[in-house]
Every structure is written in structure tokens, then in C-alpha cells.
């Protein structure tokens, strides 16, 4: 039987690992992910979780240990954030090449410099091309459920790749929401014990893993294999999500669509800030604007077919990117644009807004401005450059602080 609890996003992630019966937990603390490590350590120490937790001396080592243990044949869970994800970046690309299934939670946090703690997605999107699958949670319940889905998909013989589950720092990591925690026995029926598929290190069964290749041909062969396995996760996701629904009553889609059927204008967002857009859709609908929201729950593999289907026949769409590819614009925007370019019935206008960097709020009035501006551009055919959300008041506050600091220095 499931039970409802008030859980932070971090606790929900830890529960995901516990319910999945992760056997090995290589760990390293970093804000805002630390609560996951502390929770797991407590459970292991108190015997509530029969796992081995090891504190490594860096995220790079933590990920190496995670991959090596998965390659030896145990179920592995680990977590990090932001700078930690970047510090371990070499191993992200490496471990997808090892084809080792395990789950890595990333608690999103803006990247230095300037150093900060609150979320945006330049950390997780830096891992976009690593070969890890990516699931993006918008709620605490999704964080737990995505972790269970992730193990099933990662360990599927058609995939055999690591999966990254993303949740936003602070907005989810430290926010309590009601979360339904399924029982261990229910989860055991959904997620069987780890199967190494014959790839492991044992006496008398020599195996060479992650060996060098010479030349582009064998290199391309293995890179293509991993790419195709990544793509295979599109079908695997649908199968696993259907089973998950039958078992736990919650349905997940690779692309989450909200009030899009009759929408003229669609917001496109990922992670927890998409719940702000969802709220804005309801408000804007009340004021007579036909708007909707699409939210990729799975970002890798990219649910391109579902996105094309959802956007076909729409007048316009706005991608609100909580990231910034400097010198270009929003990362999600280019991904969506490449998917719909040349499609029959593609939206005439696909605008791009950068917002929510370092946890900066996106208010209802901004969603209103985005919707009306995008609709206006669609009607007039005017091309809008990428817009950086920032309000006059905010700029005035920054200027004020600078003026005070300058004055203090003069008087000192």
C-alpha cells in the first residue's frame, strides 16, 4: 500500500533510491543535494537500507566508482549538483560509453561565476550530449517516480545506459509536497533485482571493458551503438510508463501537454518552473487567451515526434529557457526549432525567452507579456530576438546597491 507523506524533493529522490533497493551509494556532498546523501547515510547506518555508502573525495571519483561498481554487477545510485556535475563531466561521457546502467540525480543549481546556490539548467544541459538519458521532474512526486522509471529504462537490455534525473535546487529540493510512497513489495514487482546481463568482473570469467580503439571506424561504431540505444529508450519509456501506471496509478509521458488541444499559443518549459507556466496558462485562459504548455519530461532521448505532434497547427510557441548558451540564446529553443523546421503546420513563430537564471522568479505578468508578445509577433510576422527577462525594478535595485557600495568606498 502507498502512503502519503510531506517530503522535500531531496527526500523524494532518496526514497526513490531506497525503494529501488540501490546496493551501492558512492557519495559526495554539495548544496543543494547534500540532504540526499545525509538521508541515505542515516538509513544505511540505522539498518533501514541494506546498502553500502562510500564517501568519495570528489564527484569525478564518485562517478568513476559508480560506473565501476555498475560494471561489476550491482545496482548503483548517486547524486550531485551544478559544479559537482561539471567536475565529474569527463566521467559522464565516459560512463555512457561503458554502457553501465545506474541512476544519477542532479539537483540543478546555477553555475559559477558568479558562484550561487539557486537553480537553473546550465548544469544539467552541459550534460546534454554525454549519452546519459535525462528525465526532468517538476514536482516531488515526479522526482520519486522518475527515479523508479529511470532504473527500469536504464537496465532494459535495449538501453543499458545511465540515466540522469533532474530536479531543481531549492524550488524542489527544499520544498515539501505531498508524496505518495509506494511499498517496497509493490516496487519489487515493478523493478526486479539488478541483472548484469553477463557483463561483470568475476574470477575465471575475464572481461575487458572500456578498452581503447584505434581509428575512427571502431570509435564511430561504439558511439553509434550508444546513440541508437539512447533512442531505443523512447519506446522503452512508453512501455515502462504504461506498466508504472497500471501498478501505481500515475501516468507519465515523455512530453507532458497541458491545455494544448485548442491552444493558439504554447509555452515550452522544463522542470519545476514549468508549474509556474501551468498556473499562468490557467490565468491567461481566464482572460480569454488560448494558451497551453508543453513540458518535456524526458529530454534525452529527445521526444521529437511528440513535440512535432503537439505543435502541429499551433499559431505560435514561446520557449522559456532557464539556461543561457552565451553568444546564442536558449538551448531548448534551438532543440525545438530543429525539430519543427520545415514541418507542415509548424508554428509561424517560435520565440525565445531567457528566465529563471540562478533561481530568479518568473512572475505571472511576465508570462502574460511572453504570451501577448508572441501572439503579436505571429500576427504581424515580426521576428523577435531572444529576450532576456529582467524588469526595470530589478535593474534599479542593482544600480542602487552599486551606488551604495561606491558611496561606502568613497567615505571609507
Amino acid at each position, binding site marked *: 500500500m502507498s502512503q502519503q507523506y510531506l517530503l522535500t524533493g531531496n527526500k523524494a529522490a532518496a526514497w526513490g533510491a531506497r525503494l529501488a533497493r540501490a546496493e551501492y551509494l558512492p557519495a559526495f556532498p554539495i548544496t543543494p543535494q547534500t540532504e540526499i546523501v545525509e538521508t541515505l547515510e542515516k538509513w544505511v547506518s540505522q539498518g533501514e537500507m541494506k546498502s553500502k555508502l562510500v564517501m568519495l573525495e570528489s564527484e569525478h571519483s564518485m562517478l568513476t566508482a559508480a560506473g*565501476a561498481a*555498475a560494471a561489476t*554487477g550491482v545496482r548503483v545510485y548517486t547524486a550531485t549538483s551544478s559544479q559537482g556535475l561539471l567536475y565529474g563531466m569527463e*566521467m559522464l561521457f565516459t560512463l555512457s560509453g561503458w554502457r553501465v546502467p545506474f541512476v544519477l540525480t542532479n539537483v540543478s543549481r546555477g553555475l559559477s561565476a558568479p558562484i550561487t546556490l539557486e537553480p537553473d539548467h546550465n548544469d544539467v544541459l552541459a550534460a546534454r550530449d554525454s549519452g546519459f538519458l535525462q528525465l526532468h521532474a517538476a514536482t516531488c512526486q515526479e522526482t520519486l517516480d522518475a527515479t523508479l522509471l529511470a532504473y527500469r529504462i536504464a537496465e532494459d537490455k535495449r538501453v543499458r545506459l545511465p540515466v540522469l534525473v533532474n530536479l531543481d535546487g531549492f524550488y524542489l529540493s527544499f520544498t515539501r509536497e505531498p508524496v505518495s510512497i509506494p511499498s517496497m513489495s509493490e516496487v519489487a514487482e515493478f523493478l526486479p533485482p539488478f541483472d548484469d546481463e553477463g557483463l561483470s568482473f568475476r574470477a575465471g570469467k*575475464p*572481461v575487458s*571493458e572500456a*578498452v581503447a580503439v*584505434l581509428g575512427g571506424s571502431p570509435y564511430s561504431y561504439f558511439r553509434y551503438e550508444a546513440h541508437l540505444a539512447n533512442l531505443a529508450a523512447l519506446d522503452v519509456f512508453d512501455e515502462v510508463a504504461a506498466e508504472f501506471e497500471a501498478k501505481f496509478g500515475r501516468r507519465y509521458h515523455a512530453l507532458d501537454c497541458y491545455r494544448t488541444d485548442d491552444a493558439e499559443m504554447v509555452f515550452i518549459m522544463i522542470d519545476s518552473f514549468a508549474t509556474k507556466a501551468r498556473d499562468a496558462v490557467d490565468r491567461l485562459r481566464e482572460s480569454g487567451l488560448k494558451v497551453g504548455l508543453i513540458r518535456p519530461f524526458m529530454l534525452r532521448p529527445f521526444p521529437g515526434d511528440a513535440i512535432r505532434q503537439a505543435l502541429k497547427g499551433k499559431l505560435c510557441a514561446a520557449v522559456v529557457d532557464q539556461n543561457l548558451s552565451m553568444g546564442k540564446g536558449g538551448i531548448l529553443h534551438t532543440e525545438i526549432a530543429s525539430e519543427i523546421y520545415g514541418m507542415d503546420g509548424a508554428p509561424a513563430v517560435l520565440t525565445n525567452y531567457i528566465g529563471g537564471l540562478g533561481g530568479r522568479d518568473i512572475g505571472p505578468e511576465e508570462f502574460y507579456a511572453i504570451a501577448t508578445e508572441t501572439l503579436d509577433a505571429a500576427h504581424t510576422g515580426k521576428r523577435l530576438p531572444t529576450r532576456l527577462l529582467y524588469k526595470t525594478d530589478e535593474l534599479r535595485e542593482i544600480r542602487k546597491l552599486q551606488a551604495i557600495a561606491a558611496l561606502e568606498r568613497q567615505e571609507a
Partner: protein
Amino acid sequence: MSETLFKRAKDLPSTHLLGAGTAMCAGCGGLAAIKEVYDVLGENTVFVNAAGCMTLLSVYPFTPFRGSWLYTAMASAPAGAQGVRDALDILKSTGKIAEQDDLNVVCLTGDGSAGGIGLSATSGALDRHLDFMYLCYDNEGYGNTGQQTSTATPHGARTATEHHKTGNPDFKKDLFSVWTAHKPAYAATVVASEPLDLARKVERAMTYKGPKMILALSPCPTGWDYDPQLTMELGRLAVKTGIWPLKEYIDGKVVHSRIKGRLPVEEYLSLQGRFAHLFNPVRNDKVIGEIQAHVDEYWAAVENVAA
């Protein structure tokens, strides 16, 4: 010394586990050391490799190893060994594998990784008392990329990144002391040209649980610029000149193999192109003297401790 299987040279393993035909250079002193270590450890060994020369041992789809291999990255091979060791322990404790399915976990790394980019991960594994062997083939430079200066490059040596008249101004990092400061279960220096000493040390190391650190001087014909047939001779000279002290760390104490009639360092230096500038076109007594003094000071300190 406790009972050993290796009382004399004819006791050394006569069948060799490492296959021939690898991509290593002719006369590779590192490969010779690995071959000798592997014969003592046996085929139920998994090598967890850091980026370096030896990464080219296993090239798809071939391997010279009878046992297993996992290439990791340059910075984190000890953490890879941690993951493999922990996973094997988990599988044993949950009854998923039997005791006899277990493996020796050996981290295989060069001096470039061991003394620099991988030192943090090595220190971490030592802090955690990881039950593994750490085998560093020390060819005194970034050998795989053409012998650039590493933290292990000796004083006076020329490298691909050190063309100064007098060679490397710095002295070789004392990695052995860095390790022993962590109080490992066991640590030793070896060289392939002393196979009996090497075999006994590997044999002894495996009687300990915890980190077992092996530092193997690895004469490198291409990096040190000498005729490949001199690899064993240079190993012997490194020991006889006192440049490469053979020693063990056991139970908190360092014990040296004593040298009778230490030879002058130039007998070792003059055979290598990387030191040629110290002898030609004019002899550089200053730098040769510095190297000799460094060795003399080392052994004087050893004698003082022993006295």
C-alpha cells in the same frame, strides 16, 4: 622475512600470463615490471587502468591479459578500483557470488597520474583503507605523450618540455613518502631488473588487507633515450648507484635493501640521452654533483635512522 615461495631465481614463475605482441615500445621497463607482478598475482586479477602508456595494452578487440581489465580516466583509477572492490564485496556478502569468484583489484597507473592528476583519488583510496594493489610504473615523465616533465622527472633530465641547458631544475617527487604518510597496509619500491626482490614484495603485499602500494622504476628507452637492450642494465645501475632505493614499508617502518659499494651516479646517467647534456660537449660537474649529493644525503639519512 616470512616464508616465501621465491627463494631463488629458479623459483620465479616459469609460465607467463601476459601475452606478447602488445603496442608497448621495445625494451619497455614498465611492461617488464607488470609482467613480473602479474605472474605472482595470477590471472584472477582485474586491472583498473589510468590513462597512460599501458592504456594501449588492451585495444579493441584484443587484450594481452588472461584476466580482466577496466580502463577509467587519468584522474580517477583508484576510485574505479574502489567501485569494483565494493561491488565484489556487496555481491559476496549478499551471496550473489562465491568467495572463489573474487578478484585481486589492481590499480595500474603511471607516474604522471600517480603524482599529479590522480594524486587526490589515490589519497582518497588510502584514506578509505581500500583493499587493493596500486601499481605505479614510474618512467619519470608523461611517457605516452612523448616524455614531457612530470612530478617524477629527476633533477637534470631533459624532457620534451625541458630544454634548459641544465635540464630539469626540480627534484623528483618522493611519492613513496607521500604514500607512507597515509599509513598504507604495505608499500614497496621495485624494479623489473630485480625480479626476485619484486616477486617477494608482491607476494608479501598480498598477505595484507588494505592499500598495497608498489612503485616500479620503469626505464623507458624512448623517453630516456637509450638503446632498448640496456633496460635491465639501467635498472641494475639505478639500484647500485643508490638512485633507486629498494625499500619496503611494513608496520609503520621503512626497511631498505642495503647496497654494498655504491657506484657513482654518472655510471647510470651517462648511458641515457636525457642526461647527455651533462657530459657533452663539456662535462657539467655542478649538476652531476647536485645529483650525487642528493643521493648521498638520502643514504646518509637512511644510515642515521638505522644507527
